[in-house]
């Protein structure tokens, strides 16, 4: 152990330095110059990349999210984000019970496809009772039925250059007045709103609990929950689970899409990887 007399800097100087450092950080925080500083945020995002790698490392590829019993299903599953898209084309499809709706599958695939709800329902189906965790902090358990995303991807034939699966949606986020998603965040979108989109990697895309869900609790998926089709992921937060999915696109990079961060909320500062 070193003696204090041998310290290269005087104790007093160290104390002063520490006090000034901590004090200025606190003061600067008052106008958010530190908390929102782009340089500091880019350092902080290295931790987010570390979380992604660490979780991918310790989480076996096909390890399932916990599943629950019928008796655990929430009596009142909260509908969040958009709950009623106002897009005229979407309203027209909804008026016809989505009989004319087609899921477009394109981008880096061998065989671009268009699938009707009946065709999706004819594919192998999977049902799960899983927990939905919102980034805000609440959780609801629901029973979801749908087509595993892998069934669709395998039929379309994913090209080797593809790295991400992107979901393009019918909603723009001011739609349906999300009552408790931060108003400050969605206000920053332009007046017409920004189309919702999301992206996932292939670890999640091929995970057995990743569904294109068309039923909630044994009923046809209601509009508030993303009719006719929404994404379900077992191991990430709710904002990754795009509702009102119209088109699936396989891409090598999402840098040229939207704000370049791989999703609607990601473009507003949320992490692309939402496993935490």
């Amino acid at each position: 152990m070193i003696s204090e007399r041998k310290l290269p800097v005087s104790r007093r100087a160290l104390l002063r330095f520490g006090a000034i450092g901590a004090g200025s950080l606190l003061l600067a925080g008052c106008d958010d110059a530190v908390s929102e500083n782009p340089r500091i945020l880019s350092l902080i995002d290295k931790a987010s990349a570390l979380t992604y790698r660490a979780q991918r490392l310790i989480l076996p590829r096909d390890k399932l999210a916990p599943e629950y019993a019928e008796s655990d299903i929430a009596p009142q599953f909260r509908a969040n984000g958009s709950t009623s898209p106002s897009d005229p084309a979407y309203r027209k499809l909804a008026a016809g019970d989505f009989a004319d709706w087609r899921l477009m599958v394109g981008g880096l695939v061998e065989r671009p496809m268009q699938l009707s709800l009946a065709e999706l329902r004819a594919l192998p189906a999977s049902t799960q009772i899983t927990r939905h965790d919102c980034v805000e902090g609440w959780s609801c358990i629901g029973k979801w039925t749908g087509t595993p995303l892998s069934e669709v991807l395998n039929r379309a034939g994913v090209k080797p250059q593809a790295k991400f699966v992107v979901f393009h949606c019918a909603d723009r986020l001011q739609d349906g007045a999300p009552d408790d998603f931060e108003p400050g965040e969605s206000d920053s979108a332009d007046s017409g709103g920004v189309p919702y989109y999301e992206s996932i990697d292939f670890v999640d895309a091929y995970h057995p609990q990743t569904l294109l869900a068309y039923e909630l609790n044994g009923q046809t998926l209601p509009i508030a929950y993303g009719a006719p089709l929404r994404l379900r992921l077992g191991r990430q937060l709710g904002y990754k689970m795009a509702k009102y999915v119209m088109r699936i696109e396989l891409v090598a990079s999402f840098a040229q899409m939207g704000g370049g961060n791989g999703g609607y909320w990601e473009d507003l500062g949320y992490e692309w990887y939402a496993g935490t």
Partner: protein
Amino acid sequence: MSGFALQSHAMGKRVAVRRHGLIVRITHWVNALVWVFLLMSGLQIFNAHPALYFGQQSNFTHPFLVMGAANDNPARGMTSIAGHSFDTTGWLGVSYDESGEPVERGFPRFVTWPGEQDLATGRRWHFFLAWLFVINGTIYLLSGVLSRHFTRDLLPSWADIRHIPRSIFDHVQLKFAHERRYNVLQKLAYISAALVALPLMVLTGLTMSPAMDAAFPWLLEVFGGRQSARSIHFITAMFLVLFLFVHLVMVLISGVFNNLRSMITGRYVVEEQAHDL
């Protein structure tokens, strides 16, 4: 601990001892800075849904704790815990923005990081700081075990445990012995904060991650569900706020200069009775 006599008193000798090892001192100050911002960014995250539940999921009609605004003009902040409501205007539920306007939010802007309502930024800071906290805490724990600091200085002996009533009596009388070794209440306080509450924060934090729940489903069993884990995370954070308050008061009233010096340079002056030497 090695010591040397400074001066003689009629009642005893004042002796300088080396109280805190280098790693304890460094990790203490790193932890102090990181923890303050973890707390504030955590309150920012809590504000996105200022309600707590027990169990796997959220029973929105019966939260264990909820902060919100009553439909009054001017707005009143209400906090309700286990069905009992309190008016907390200005602090919880409703507080004031920069221009003095009342806004509905759980905790007020002066205790959240960042100050404005901004869940995305709060989360990025919280998880970045959590990595620093875990790395710093791991160094502290490893060094505490390997150097036998925990077993030698923190683990209460049977004599300590028998001494608890006496120690409480001394503290109530504001008699704080400056001794070489921690008294039993100090030992219990430091064990509960450093070896119980802080590791509990990490585990309940991990339980809120859907990916970690898939990797380690036993986390959900241990804490009784994700929403229970979130509530325990919050309650433990409040316990740590209480610990910090008591800690700061004790540092101030039991010889602030001596205490601060001991955590910066390691040197701590004790008074020893002649018969101890």
